[in-house]
Structures are given as structure tokens and as C-alpha cells.
């Protein structure tokens, strides 16, 4: 069995009287593609932010069994669109050293260009961050997350706000990277079709932990109804997927 990397035990989170998460326990093991699904406001983002140490305000335990190079692709970044900062400069925050930031050498520039080419946005090297489209921004953040050879990557809705065809490429891209680099991935998603196709393990949340396991075991019509409520498209969705799998 694959080695455990992270254990989440009895995690709870709330503010004021509002309880967002309670009794959430699961493990993340090496090589997992773990999908966290649930409706809006189910606490998916807060869950991965807690695991990443960006939110300390929880109850329960999060244990990292070993130290791993980690990276994070947030759902969105908040910054002033008109601020002068190029993609290259953004990457230089992490690549190379303090001096390289002011005087990047050819080698560093090629390295950045290569990373951008991997996600097919090499032409955006000298664009301002504020001028990127949402899809370009997502790709840029994915390229950035791979800079320092991470072993585990957390994606918060990697295809949010991207049109369907681009979304397809984003997930295919992630899957290729997963196979090529032997990564562990944790992603928040609300796309059930994606979860079925790519995830090795799924955690469904609706305040409580509703289900966990492989998508085929865990995502029964009953659990899906519990997660998403009465949702006409759920049944149709599952039927479609069953056809896909046949």
C-alpha cells in the first residue's frame, strides 16, 4: 500500500455560530489524485487551505507524515489589474536568487520559457499579469506550481471560469503531469465527470464528511443526493457516466 502523506482527523471549522466543517477525517497517500467535491459553501477551499497551513483556525488535527515539496494553485488571485508585474517577474520571485531578479540570465529565462511552453503559453512571458485572460491565468499558475519540482500539488478548482474545451485541456495536462512526474494531487472540483475520469480517491463534503473512497464506490446516487441535494442533473449525469464506463 502506498505510503501515507497526510492525515486529517476530526477536522472542524466554523465562525460565530456557523459550522462549516465538522468531523472530517481522511488520509492522503502517495500517488493519490484526491478530489474534494461538495456544493458551494461546503468548506472545500477552507479544507485545503487548512492542510496547507493557510488557515490555523480549525479544530481537530492535520498531520503531515513527511515533509514534501508542496505547491498550490489557488482558485483566483486578488491583485490590482493595472499593477506593472510581468509573468517573467512573477516567476523570478521563485526561480534563481535575489540578484537574478534584477538581472535574469539567459539560462533562467529559458527555464521560465520552457515551463510556460509546457502549458502552451510561452508567448505570454513578457505580458502583464493583469492582462491575462482567466484561462491564461490558470495555465500560468499551473506552470508556476511546477517550478520547484513539487511532490504534492493542491489545486483549488483548476478549471474554474474556463470554457469547456480549455477545461478539457487543463485536466488532460494535469493528468499528463501526474503520470510523467509521479505526483500526488489534491484537487477541489465540482465536475463529476472529471472526478470519475481522473480521481483515484474522492472525499465528498456537505459540512460533514458524506463519503470517501474510490469514485466508483463512494459516489452512489444516495451520497450524491446527500452532497448536492435534490439535483435533477445528478441522475442524468450518473447515467451518462455509466454509459461512458461501459
Amino acid at each position, binding site marked *: 500500500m502506498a505510503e501515507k502523506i497526510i492525515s486529517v482527523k476530526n477536522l472542524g471549522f466554523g465562525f460565530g455560530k456557523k459550522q462549516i466543517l465538522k468531523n472530517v477525517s481522511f488520509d492522503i497517500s502517495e500517488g493519490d489524485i484526491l478530489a474534494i467535491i461538495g456544493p458551494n459553501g461546503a468548506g472545500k477551499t477552507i479544507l485545503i*487551505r487548512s492542510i*496547507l*497551513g*493557510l488557515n490555523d483556525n480549525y479544530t481537530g488535527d492535520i498531520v503531515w507524515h513527511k515533509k514534501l515539496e*508542496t*505547491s*498550490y494553485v*489557488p482558485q483566483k*488571485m486578488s*491583485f*490590482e489589474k*493595472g*499593477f*506593472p*508585474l*510581468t509573468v517573467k*517577474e*512573477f516567476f*523570478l*520571485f*521563485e526561480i534563481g536568487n*535575489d540578484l537574478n*531578479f*534584477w538581472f535574469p540570465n539567459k539560462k533562467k529565462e529559458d527555464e521560465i520559457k520552457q515551463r510556460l511552453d509546457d502549458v502552451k503559453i510561452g508567448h505570454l512571458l*513578457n505580458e*502583464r499579469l493583469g492582462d491575462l485572460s482567466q484561462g491564461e491565468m490558470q495555465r500560468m499558475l499551473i506552470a*508556476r506550481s511546477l517550478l*520547484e519540482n513539487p511532490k504534492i500539488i493542491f489545486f483549488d478548482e483548476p478549471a474554474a471560469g474556463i470554457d469547456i474545451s480549455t477545461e478539457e485541456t487543463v485536466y488532460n495536462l494535469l493528468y499528463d503531469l501526474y503520470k510523467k512526474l509521479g505526483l500526488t494531487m489534491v484537487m477541489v472540483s465540482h465536475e463529476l465527470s472529471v472526478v470519475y475520469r481522473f480521481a483515484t480517491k474522492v472525499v465528498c463534503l456537505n459540512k460533514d464528511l458524506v463519503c470517501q473512497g474510490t469514485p466508483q464506490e463512494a459516489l452512489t446516487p444516495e451520497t450524491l443526493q446527500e452532497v448536492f441535494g435534490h439535483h435533477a442533473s445528478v441522475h442524468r449525469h450518473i447515467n451518462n457516466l455509466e454509459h461512458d464506463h461501459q
Partner: protein
Amino acid sequence: MNWLELLNNIYPILISLSLGLSLPLIGVFVILRREALLSDAVAHIILLGIALSITFKINALLGILVFALLAGLVISYLKGKANLGLDAIIGVFFTTSLALGSLLIPSEELLETFLGGVENLTRGDVLLSTVLAALIIITLLVKFRSFAFTSFAPDLAKVDKINVKKYEMVFVLLLSLGVAMGIKLVGTLLISALIIIPAATAKLFSFQIRTMTGWSMIFGLLSVLLGLVTTTTLQSPPGPTIILVSAGIFFLTFVLTSIFRKHH
């Protein structure tokens, strides 16, 4: 020109270099972090420091520095309290210290405290400013990418195991020292303008943060140098003069970049 004259001329140049280069560099980060009110907050607290040093007859510079450090600590502490917005904190606490400071400072000195002056700027002040400015400039330029990364994307920096809190505290401290060293010349009301305007001017046309930083410092130096020359010629108070020069450069750049954009 004999040595004594040369020495006398070197002080205005030193103070121009110190303030003109370091404050706009701080301004780049202030704009990046969208915390334009921060320098005002520090200036308000320092005003109280000046008031208390006049009341208790302590060295003014000591009062300024102690209260600058105090301001840095108080702001860093309050910023951690998520449910109090920074603008609300400034609206309540720091204007209180402005009010208290204004009452304590004798009326004949009040105008100079607000608008700055050249007369009581001692050689010691200038030398201290030079040292502080060098400290600010070297720290911010050498560790630029970490200060910029933690300001721009604190979450991503934190996941990369960078101590975001540390950079934030050091930045607030450098900002406080910057305000402290400029406050005698430019005055408490106008000091934040010297931090913001040159950086805002550079932002009008810059495409990269590195270019913006370079131009901010050039505009800052120009503002202080031209401002001091005008002050000496017209016998006007230095604070408003420097800021008006700086604002003049801003509007000129604004018009030029607008024309340039239209034609391209």
C-alpha cells in the same frame, strides 16, 4: 570653493538623495500592497511623539524615532486582528493621536510640524537620515523579490515556506523609519505624498515592477532636489514645495502617457 562651502553644500544633496530615493522605493511596495493609508497612520503617531517631546523638553529626534518604532509595532499588531480593517483603525486611533498632538504642540510650531521646515534640520539629522536611507534602500533592493512576492501573493509565498509575517513586519518598520527621517523636512501632513506620488507616477507608464521601481526613485530624487532649489529661491516651506513639484511631474507624465497611448 573651499572645503567648508563644499561641506555646507553637501547636506542638501545628502538629504535629497536620502529622502528622494528611499521614500519612493517604499512607495512601490505601499502601492503593491494597497496600503496607501499606512504612511499617514505612522505620521500621525509620530506627530504625537513630537508633541510629547516638546511638552517634556526631550530631544525631538528621539521622540520621532521612538514613536516611529512604536507606530510600526502597533500597526503590525493591529493588522493581525482580521476583524478590524486597517482604514477603520486609522480612522479611529491615528486621527486621535493627530488631534492630541495638535493640541499639545504650541501654535507657533504647529505649522512647521505639519508642513516641514529647513531651519531646524541639523547636520546630525541629515547624517542620521543618510544612514537610515541607506539601510532602507539596501534592504529593500537586495531582498526585493521576497518583499514583492510576500506582498503580491502572500498565500503562495507561505506555501513556499517563506516567513511572510517577518517580511511584513520588517516592511512596516522600514516604512516607519522612512516617515521618521522625512518628517522634519516635509512635515507630518505631506510626508505620505512623497512616498506615494513618485511611485504612482512611475506606475502610469511602467510595464514591469523593476522599471516602476527605477523610475519611482528617479522621480523622487527630482522632486526633492527641484523642491529644495525652489524653496531656497522663493523662501517657501519645503514640504508643500516638494510635494507640488512631485505632483507637477505626475500630471505632466499623466498627460504625456495619455497622448502617447492615443497615438499608438
